[in-house]
């Protein structure tokens, strides 16, 4: 069922690591549990693979334009329980909006995938494939290697968590950039951020590095390197309000605490870096206090 058995099951749609997707043996095609969207029934160098299925759509890994350009194709199938006209209109509007937000972020220099092609009416959008792994996976890998004993952890925390703190700061800066362009993501989690390796064309996986005899320490230091790329703008919105921005941070804070409870105490570094990279950061953080008090639901006034 799960095309990427190495990665743990997740509730959200998101891109799996490039390394964990088996490069499609022909058998995989027959195993598709859903009919492919029409656009993917046309020939391509390698068969598309279903990466994940979310509430709203499915994500396929395929290639676009030419066989050496990997891409993520998101397909929103028609919803049989909705009136067809309404369904078509909603699907089209949401995909069109997602595409526009991505382009806007890209122009403003916020690290997001580029849009390769879209047909909102047909329910699909093809975007750049981001190499690497979700931040969630990387942080858990990192935490998994830390001492589990709580006292040890506390004593070692200050020196040892350096790379993770650095990553938190980069995440904060990325979100600051996103908010600066007037976009709120709507579903910030560590699954909706990719950690893209720096080095060009170096797609060596951790496993292959191990076999190549690279020392464990060096490997650990590299684990959290890379650019933070924000993905999945399916719930994004345009907003300049502190309230919406604070809600974005709050959603991430809650998600972070439940996904990475052992690193919960490091979230402040993310917020600190957010505040420093964004002029209005301070007032957003102030608003965040309010949001924490009452939850993410907006006030009923107005």
């Amino acid at each position: 069922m799960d095309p990427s058995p190495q990665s743990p099951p997740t509730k959200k749609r998101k891109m799996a690591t490039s390394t964990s997707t088996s490069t499609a043996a022909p058998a995989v095609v027959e195993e598709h549990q859903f009919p492919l969207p029409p656009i993917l029934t046309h020939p391509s160098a390698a068969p598309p693979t279903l990466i994940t299925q979310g509430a709203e759509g499915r994500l396929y890994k395929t290639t676009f334009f030419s066989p050496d350009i990997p891409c993520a194709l998101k397909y929103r199938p028609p919803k049989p329980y909705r009136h067809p006209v309404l369904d078509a209109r909603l699907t089209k509007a949401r995909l069109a909006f997602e595409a526009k937000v991505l382009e806007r972020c890209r122009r403003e220099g916020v690290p997001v995938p580029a849009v390769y092609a879209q047909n909102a009416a047909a329910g699909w959008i093809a975007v750049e494939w981001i190499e690497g792994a979700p931040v969630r996976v990387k942080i858990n890998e990192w935490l998994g290697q830390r001492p589990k004993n709580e006292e040890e952890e506390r004593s070692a925390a200050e020196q040892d968590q350096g790379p993770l703190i650095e990553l938190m700061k980069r995440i904060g800066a990325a979100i600051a950039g996103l908010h600066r362009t007037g976009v709120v993501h709507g579903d910030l989690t560590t699954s909706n951020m990719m950690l893209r390796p720096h080095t060009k064309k170096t797609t060596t996986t951790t496993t292959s590095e191990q076999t190549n005899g690279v020392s464990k320490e060096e490997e650990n230091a590299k684990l959290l390197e890379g650019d933070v790329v924000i993905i999945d703008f399916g719930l994004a919105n345009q907003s300049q309000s502190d309230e919406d921005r604070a809600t974005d941070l709050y959603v991430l804070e809650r998600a972070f605490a439940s996904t990475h409870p052992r690193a919960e105490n490091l979230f402040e570094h993310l917020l600190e870096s957010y505040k420093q990279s964004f002029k209005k950061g301070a007032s957003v953080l102030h608003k965040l206090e309010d949001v924490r008090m009452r939850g993410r639901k907006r006030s009923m006034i107005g």
Partner: protein
Amino acid sequence: MALETLQIEHVPSDHHVYAALFRDVQNVDFLQAQLIGKNPEFEYAFIDASVIISRTHLFAAIFRALNTLTEGTLQTPNVHSDIVIGLSPTNNISESYRRYGLTPSKTRDVLVIKVVYPKLSSENSAITSEQPTPESIWQHLTTHIQGTPVPLTNEEFAKSTDWAKVRKYYKLNGVPGVERIDKADEEGRRKEMEGLVVSGIALRGL
């Protein structure tokens, strides 16, 4: 033969795309006259190669046009003119022809695209009763285009790209996403601009 059969991902298997690039074309005015005169023998997309930055850029426009063709939503009389306007990030059709198509006495390098696909009988014109082959297309092109054929490589495209035009047409001047990249990192800037160009093509009409 310098006519290349383009393999574009996710294009119906009965649609064939051929392309050729000619340098220093001497009879651009003649070629344009055939288009304006709607000469059925000249059903090609003629593109001014100076606005093309790479194969991916070109593929994005062709893909878009083929997609509208299969969806039955062409915006212009045929798929070839849709390829030309497919390059544009804006909806102004006549401006798109001017910018991406041929301009007599200005265009030097000409990119030719030919799409062959099974047509409905209602669309039948004089020459579609039998499908042209790569050989017959090449024969026709070399007979009528006075220029030097070169391969469609990124290197060849790079030689003739007019970046001032590309930056203007795709609104890339002063874009933070490009400007934040180190000036010395030319490859990085070029890649980023290619991404924005492709996005611009993909998003037209939204």
